[in-house]
C-alpha cells in the first residue's frame, strides 16, 4: 500500500480557507488521526499530499480529491471516519481507495450555481441568461500573464438556467483542466456582457468530476 485517493467535501464555513490552508489542514488531520503519512526527503521535509483540483476561496465542493502516500497499511474502510474526526467543521472525508485514476485524466467538472437577485424577477433573468449563452460569450479574465479575452462558452458544456424563489439555479459542466475554467467566470461573463442580468450575488458548488469521454472520474 502506498498511494491512497481521498474524496472529501468542503462546505459551509470551511470554504473560506485558501488552497494552502486546506493543505495544512489535511496534513494536520492526518497527524491527529495517526495516519502514517510519508514525508518527502530533504532539508525541509513535507507531507506527501496533493490536491487534484484546488478549490477557489468561497466555492463549495462535494467532490474534492487528494492523493496521499502512506508508510504502512491502513484500514481503508475506517479511514474516512477516522480522518473526518480530525477535520474542522465543513470538511468530511467520504471515500478512500487505491488504484485511483491518474490526475491528468480529469477533464470536466459538473457544478451548480446560485445566482441571487434581490429585486429582479428570476424567471426573466433566467431567460436573459439563456439568450446570452446561446451564442459565444467572451469574458476578460485575469491570469498569471495578465488580463485577456477568453471565450468561455468554448469550454462549457451543458449550461442550464432554472428560475427559483429569489435566485436562478445554474447548472454547468466546465473544463477543469487545460484550460481551467473557474465557474465564477460565468458570473463575470454576465456582468460584463449583460449588466442588467448580473446577479446581486453568486456562488457555485462543485458536484462531480468527469474524464474527457464523459465517464465519471475516480
Amino acid at each position: 500500500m502506498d498511494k491512497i485517493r481521498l474524496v472529501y467535501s468542503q462546505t459551509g464555513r470551511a470554504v473560506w480557507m485558501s488552497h494552502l490552508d486546506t493543505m495544512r489542514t489535511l496534513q494536520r488531520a492526518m497527524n491527529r488521526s495517526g495516519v502514517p503519512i510519508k514525508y518527502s526527503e530533504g532539508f525541509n521535509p513535507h507531507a506527501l499530499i496533493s490536491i487534484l483540483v484546488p478549490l477557489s476561496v468561497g466555492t463549495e465542493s462535494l467532490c474534492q480529491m487528494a492523493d496521499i502516500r502512506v508508510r504502512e497499511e491502513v484500514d481503508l474502510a475506517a479511514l474516512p471516519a477516522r480522518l473526518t474526526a480530525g477535520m474542522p467543521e465543513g470538511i468530511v472525508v467520504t471515500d478512500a481507495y487505491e488504484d485511483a485514476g491518474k490526475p491528468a485524466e480529469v477533464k470536466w467538472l459538473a457544478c451548480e450555481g446560485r445566482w441571487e437577485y434581490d429585486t429582479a424577477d428570476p424567471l426573466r433573468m433566467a431567460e436573459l441568461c439563456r439568450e446570452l449563452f446561446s451564442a459565444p460569450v467572451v469574458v476578460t479574465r485575469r491570469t498569471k500573464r495578465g488580463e485577456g479575452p477568453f471565450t468561455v462558452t468554448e469550454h462549457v458544456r451543458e449550461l442550464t438556467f432554472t428560475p427559483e424563489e429569489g435566485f436562478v439555479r445554474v447548472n454547468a459542466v466546465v473544463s477543469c483542466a487545460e484550460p481551467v475554467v473557474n465557474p465564477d467566470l460565468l458570473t463575470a461573463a454576465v456582468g460584463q456582457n449583460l449588466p442588467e442580468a448580473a446577479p446581486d450575488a453568486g456562488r457555485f458548488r462543485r458536484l462531480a468530476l468527469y474524464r474527457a469521454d464523459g465517464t465519471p472520474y475516480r
Partner: protein
Amino acid sequence: MEKKLERILPKVQKPARYTGGEYGEIQKDRTAVDLRMALCFPDVYEIGMSNTGMRILYRVLNDMPGVWCERVFAPWFDMAKEMRENHIPLYALESGDPLTAFDAIGFSLGYEMAYTTVLEMLSLAGIPLHSRERESLTPLVFAGGSVCCNPEPMADYFDLMIVGEGEAVDREVLELLRTAKQENWSKADFLRRAAGIGGVYVPSLYEPEYDENGLFRAVHPRDGAPAAVTKRIVEDFENSCFPADAIVPNTEIVHDRVGLELFRGCIRGCRFCQAGHIYRPVRSRSVEKLLEHGKEALAFSGYQEITLLSLSTSDYRGLNGLCDGLMDYCEPRGIGLSLPSLRADNFSMDIMQRVQKVRKSGLTFAPEAGTQRLRDVINKNVTEEELLRSCATAFRGGWNGVKLYFMLGLPTETDEDVIGIAELADRVVHCWRENAANKARGLRVTVSTSCFVPKPHTPFQWEPQVERSEYLRRVTLLREHMKARAVTYNWHEADTSYTEAVLSRGDRRIGALIHAIWRRGGYLESWSEGFDLSRWTESAAELGLSLDDYAVRERALTEALPWDHINMGVQKRHFLREYEQAHRGCLSPDCRAACLGCGAAAFLKEGRCDNG
C-alpha cells in the same frame, strides 16, 4: 452563516479569519447556558489566536458550567468598512451573534497601542463606549491583561479591570455576574460588590485628584472600595490550566505551533522590563508536566512544531531534560522544536546545537545596550565576552546569521554607548572571521534598535523618554558608525514609541485623548496602516494636553504616580532602590544569587519564590 456576511466575505482579504468553525472550536447550545461571554482581542485574528492568555481563558471559562465563552477579534480595515456599510454588527466567531447578545464582554489587553481598537470594536458592535453611558447590568464591559497594571488611561471605558492573572479572577467575576442577573441587581450594586473581589479594580469607584499645577496627586476610593487593588496570581502554576485542546486555526497565524509555558515571572530584574517585574514571583512547571502537556497538545493539534514560551527560557532549571524529552518524542515524528532567543551562555549554546541539528534558524541575542557600563545601568547581566564566546561556538557549529537587539535612549546613555553598539557588531564580524566553519556562505549580522519606553512598575518608571529628534540623532550617529558590509541596521520608528510612552504612564485624562484619536480614525494603531501621529498631535491640541508632559517629562521620585494604588507585587521601595543602583551604575544580583526582597514572595503561601 448570515447571508449578508456571505456576500462580503468574497470581497475581503483572508476571509477565513472571520468565519470560525476551526478544529477545537467550542460550540454550545445557546438555550442551555445562562451566561454568555465574549472574549475580545483588540487586534486581528492572526495575532489574537496566537496569544497564550486567550487560549487559556477560552478553556478556563468554557469549563464553567452554564457559561459559553466565544471569541471576537478586530476586523482588518477592509472588513470593518464592509461591516459598517452593510450594517453587520461586530459578532462572535462561534455563534455569529452580535456582541449585544452577550452578558459579559471581556478584552484581553496586552499592549497600550490597542486602546483605540477597543473603542472601535465597541462602536462596531453598537455598544456605548463609556462605562457611565451603559446603564444596564449587561453587557458588562471589562478588561484584563498586562496593561491593566496602569488602568487609568482606559478607566472611563471599562466597568471593571482585572489586575494580575485573569484565569485566577475571571471566574469569580462571572459567578458574581450570574448571581446579579438572577437577582436583578443594578449595575451600581454589582460593581460595588465586584470591587470586593481580590484583583478587581472598578474605576468608577475611584476619583482622581490633581494639584494646582495639573500634576496627579491621588485617587480617592469611595463606597467601600479598597484603597489599593492587589493583583491576583495563579499560585499552583504546576497544576494550572494548560489548554492542550486549544483551537487550531483554519488559516495561518503568527504563532502557528504548540507553545509550552515553562514558567511565569523572571528572576533577572532588567530595570527597563515591565514583564519581568509584574509577573513576579517566579513559578515554574516540572519537566514531567511540560512533557505531558507537549505530547498532549501535539497529538491533539497535529502541529509539526513546538516552542518554549517564557521570559527567559535559559533560566529554566530543567531545560536540558525537557529538550531531551521533547526531542525523543519529536524527532521520529518529524516535529520541529524551536527555541526562543536564549541567553548568550555556554549552557544555552549547547542546547541550541543539540536541538537545531536539522533546522538552523538564526541566532538572536538581546544585549540591549552597547557598552558594559550601560548594561550595568539597566541590569542586563550579559558580558561582551560571553556574547562573543557564544557567537564563536555558533559560528564553529555552522551558524552564519546573528540578530542583535538594542534600545536607544536608555537612562544615562551617551554617544559612546551608541557607538558601542556598532563596535560590538564589528567584534561579532571579527569573531566570525576567526571561527566560521564555512566562510563561503557569508555572514549576516542584523542590528535592530528601538526607542526606550519607560513603563510603570519598573525601576525606570520615573525616567524621561528621549525626544524623538534626539532618538533620530542617535540613530544617525549609529548608522554612521556601522561600517562592516555584513551588518544590516534596522531601526524602529520613534513615533509609536513616543505614543506608547504617553499611554503607558498616562493618567485618567488620557482617556479623552484616546477617544479623540479614535474619532479621527485611529484603529489598529500597532499596524502602520492604522497609525498616524498627526491624529495624536491634533487631538492633544484640541484637549489642551501636552504629549511631552507624559512621554519626556522626568518624574520626581516623590511625585504620586497614577498607578500607585495598583499593587503588582513588587513594592515601590524596591523600584526606588533599583533606580538608585542604576544611577550608580551598579548591577543587582538575580533572584537565584540573592533575594532582594522585592515583595513578590508575599504572593506565595510559603512566602518563598522559585529562586533556590
